[in-house]
C-alpha cells in the first residue's frame, strides 16, 4: 500500500489531489476506492498508525493502546457515563470490530424516507440492495461456520432455542476465519476483511495515497468552497493537502463534527442528534470449560426482539476485560479468577431513543454528552432478563447480571425472570458501553434540520462532503459497517456526478 508515515514528516509537506479524504475507516475506504477506480487522484489522511496484522499485540491493554482511540477509555458523560469505543488506525474501527455485517434493515430505510421524502432518490431500495450484494461479495461476508464458532456461540443457539427466540450465526466479513477470537485486538492472521486489507489496497493500487499518523486540524475554505485540509504530522511537520474537486469527511460521528467545529463550519445541527447503540453484558458461569476468548469473536446473534429495538450477541474479548467484570476485590477477586475459563459473556444492544451531542472541549478534545431515556433503560432491563434466562437455559450454573443494587450472583432461573420487573431503573446501576455512533451531521433536505444534503454535500460549503455514519438520520438497531460502506460509496458516486 502507498502509505507515508507521518512520523517521518518533520518539515512542511504539501500535496495536491482531486479529492482529500479524512479518515481511512469503512467510510473513507469505500469512498477512496470508488473515486480511485474512476481515475481521480485521492489522498487519505489518518490519525492512527498503519499496523501489519503480524504486529497486532496479543493482550488487551497493548492492543487498545495501539489500535483504539484513547485506549478505549473515552467516556460519554450523561445520566450513565459510558465508555465510547473507536478504532484509530489505518482501516479505522474495521481493524478492531467484531466483523459483524448487516444490511441496512428495510424498516429503518423506509423510516428515514418517510420522515424525509427528499432521501428517496439517494436511498432507493433496489439500488441499495445491489450495492449490498457487491459489498458482501467484496468482503466475503457469510454466516459464521460452526467449525470455528466455539462453545460461547453454540451455547447461545442452545439458549435461544430453549426460549423460542429467533437466532442465527452472525454474518461476518472474514475469509478463512480460524476462530482465534482476536477480532477486537486485530486478527493476527489477517482473516478479517478489514479496510486495510481490502478496499484501501485497491484504492492505492489505483493511485490513492495514505498519510498515516497525520491529525487533520481544519478544513480549508475559500469563497464558500472547500479547497483542502491542513494537519499536523506525528513527526512535527505541517501537512497541507489541496483538493481540486472535493474534501470528504469520513472520520466518524465524533471526529467529523469536531472537525467542522474546529474549522468554523457550524451550519445546521452539527454535533447534535448523537444517537447510539448502548449495550450491556450479562455473564454466565458454566460447569464445563468454555474459554470465551477462543472461537469466532462474535459468531451468534438472537434477532427475535430486533423490532423492539433489542438485539443479542455473543461476545468475545481479551481475558483482561473478562476478568475486570468478575465479582469481588482483593483475595476474593483473585480466587474468582479460577472461573475465568468457565465464563460466557453475552451482550444486549439497544436501538436507543437517547440523544446526545458532541462539542469541542479543553485542548480540542471531544466532549460527548449522551443520556439514556427511561424507555432505553426498560429495554436494557428486558435484555438483561432475557440474557439471564437464556444463559440458564443453555446450562449456566450461575448468572452474574452485573447490575448494582441487585443480586450479584443468581443461581435460580425464576429469580432471573423477575429482573425485568424488579431491576433498577437508575441508568447508573448498569455497566453500559456504546460502540455505534450516528447522526451528528445528518443528511436531509431541510437546511435547518440537517448538515448535508441528500447527496452528501454540505448545505453551506460547496465541494465539502460527509461520508460516515454521522450522516445517518437515526441509529439503525444493527451493526452499521455494511451500511456505512454503502452510503460512502453513494457519496463517492455523488462526487463523480458533480
Amino acid at each position: 500500500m502507498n502509505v507515508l508515515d507521518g512520523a517521518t514528516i518533520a518539515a512542511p509537506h504539501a500535496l495536491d489531489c482531486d479529492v482529500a479524504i479524512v479518515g481511512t475507516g469503512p467510510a473513507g475506504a469505500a469512498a477512496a476506492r470508488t473515486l480511485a477506480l474512476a481515475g481521480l487522484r485521492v489522498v487519505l489522511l489518518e490519525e492512527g498508525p498503519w499496523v501489519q496484522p503480524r504486529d497486532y499485540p496479543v493482550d488487551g491493554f497493548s492492543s487498545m493502546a495501539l489500535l483504539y482511540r484513547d485506549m478505549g477509555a473515552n467516556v460519554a458523560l450523561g445520566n450513565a457515563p459510558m465508555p465510547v469505543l473507536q478504532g484509530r488506525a489505518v482501516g479505522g474501527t474495521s481493524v478492531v470490530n467484531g466483523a459483524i455485517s448487516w444490511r441496512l434493515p428495510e424498516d429503518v430505510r423506509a423510516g428515514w424516507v418517510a420522515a424525509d421524502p427528499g432521501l428517496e432518490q439517494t436511498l432507493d431500495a433496489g439500488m441499495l440492495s445491489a450495492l449490498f450484494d457487491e459489498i458482501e461479495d467484496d468482503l466475503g461476508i457469510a454466516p459464521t461456520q460452526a467449525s470455528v464458532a466455539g462453545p460461547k456461540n453454540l451455547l447461545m443457539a442452545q439458549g435461544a432455542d430453549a426460549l423460542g427466540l429467533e437466532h442465527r450465526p452472525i454474518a461476518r466479513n472474514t475469509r478463512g476465519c480460524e476462530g482465534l477470537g482476536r477480532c477486537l485486538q486485530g486478527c493476527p492472521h489477517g482473516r478479517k476483511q478489514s479496510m486495510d486489507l481490502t478496499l484501501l489496497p485497491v484504492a492505492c493500487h489505483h493511485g490513492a495515497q495514505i498519510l498515516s499518523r497525520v491529525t487533520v486540524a481544519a478544513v480549508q475554505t475559500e469563497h464558500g468552497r472547500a479547497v483542502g485540509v491542513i494537519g499536523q504530522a506525528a513527526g512535527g511537520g505541517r501537512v497541507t493537502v489541496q483538493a481540486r474537486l472535493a474534501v470528504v469527511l469520513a472520520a466518524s460521528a465524533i471526529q467529523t463534527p469536531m472537525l467542522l467545529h474546529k474549522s468554523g463550519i457550524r451550519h445546521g445541527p452539527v454535533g447534535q442528534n448523537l444517537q447510539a447503540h448502548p449495550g450491556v453484558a450479562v455473564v454466565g458461569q458454566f460447569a464445563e470449560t468454555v474459554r470465551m476468548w477462543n472461537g469466532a469473536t462474535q459468531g451468534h446473534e438472537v434477532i427475535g426482539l430486533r423490532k423492539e429495538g433489542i438485539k443479542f450477541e455473543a461476545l468475545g474479548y481479551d481475558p483482561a476485560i473478562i476478568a475486570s467484570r468478575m465479582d469481588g476485590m482483593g483475595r476474593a477477586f483473585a480466587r474468582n479468577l479460577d472461573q475465568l475459563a468457565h465464563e460466557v459473556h453475552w451482550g444486549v444492544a439497544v436501538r436507543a431513543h437517547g440523544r446526545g451531542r458532541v462539542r469541542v472541549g479543553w485542548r480540542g478534545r471531544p466532549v460527548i454528552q449522551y443520556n439514556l431515556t427511561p424507555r432505553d433503560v426498560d429495554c436494557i432491563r428486558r435484555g438483561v432478563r432475557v440474557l439471564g434466562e437464556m444463559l440458564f437455559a443453555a446450562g449456566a450454573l450461575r448468572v452474574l447480571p452485573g447490575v448494582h443494587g441487585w443480586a450479584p450472583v443468581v443461581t435460580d432461573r425464576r429469580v432471573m425472570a423477575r429482573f425485568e420487573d424488579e431491576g433498577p431503573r437508575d441508568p447508573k446501576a448498569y455497566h453500559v458501553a456504546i460502540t455505534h455512533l450516528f447522526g451528528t451531521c445528518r443528511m436531509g433536505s431541510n437546511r435547518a434540520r440537517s448538515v448535508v444534503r441528500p447527496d452528501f454535500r454540505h448545505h453551506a460549503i460547496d465541494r465539502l462532503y460527509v461520508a460516515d455514519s454521522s450522516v445517518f438520520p437515526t441509529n439503525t438497531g444493527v451493526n452499521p459497517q455494511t451500511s456505512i460502506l454503502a452510503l460512502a460509496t453513494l457519496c463517492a458516486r455523488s462526487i463523480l456526478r458533480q
Partner: protein
Amino acid sequence: MNGWLTVEMRWLRLLLDATVPDLPDRAGLPQVDLTTFWPELARVAPPLLRLGLRFTTWTFTWLPLVLPGYGRPFFALSADRRDAFLAQMSDTPVFLLRQLAATLKVIACFALFRDPPSRRALGVVP
C-alpha cells in the same frame, strides 16, 4: 507516570496489588514487573482517565483513615482490612466511588494480563 510523585506511584502500586493479590497457590499482581506498563499507560491514557486514576489513588489511600471501621490510611491496613475496604468501595451506593473501584480493577487486570506468565497461570494461551 508523568508528573506523579514517587509516593503517589507507590500508593497506586499498593492499591493495584491489593486488587489482585497473591494467593497461596497463584501469584498475583505483586509479582508482575510493571516497569514498561507505566510509561505506556501514561502515553496513551486520555486526560480523564489519568485524572481519575490520580483521584482514585488519593481517595482510596486516605479515605480509610476517616471511614468507620478502618481508622488508618490504606497502606497501614492489614490484608484483611484492605480486602474489606476495596470490597466496600466496589459495592458502595456512591456512584463515583464505585466508578473509581471499577477503574482500579480494569487497570489491575490490564497490567496482570499483559504479563505472559500470569496469562499462562490462568490458563490463557497465548
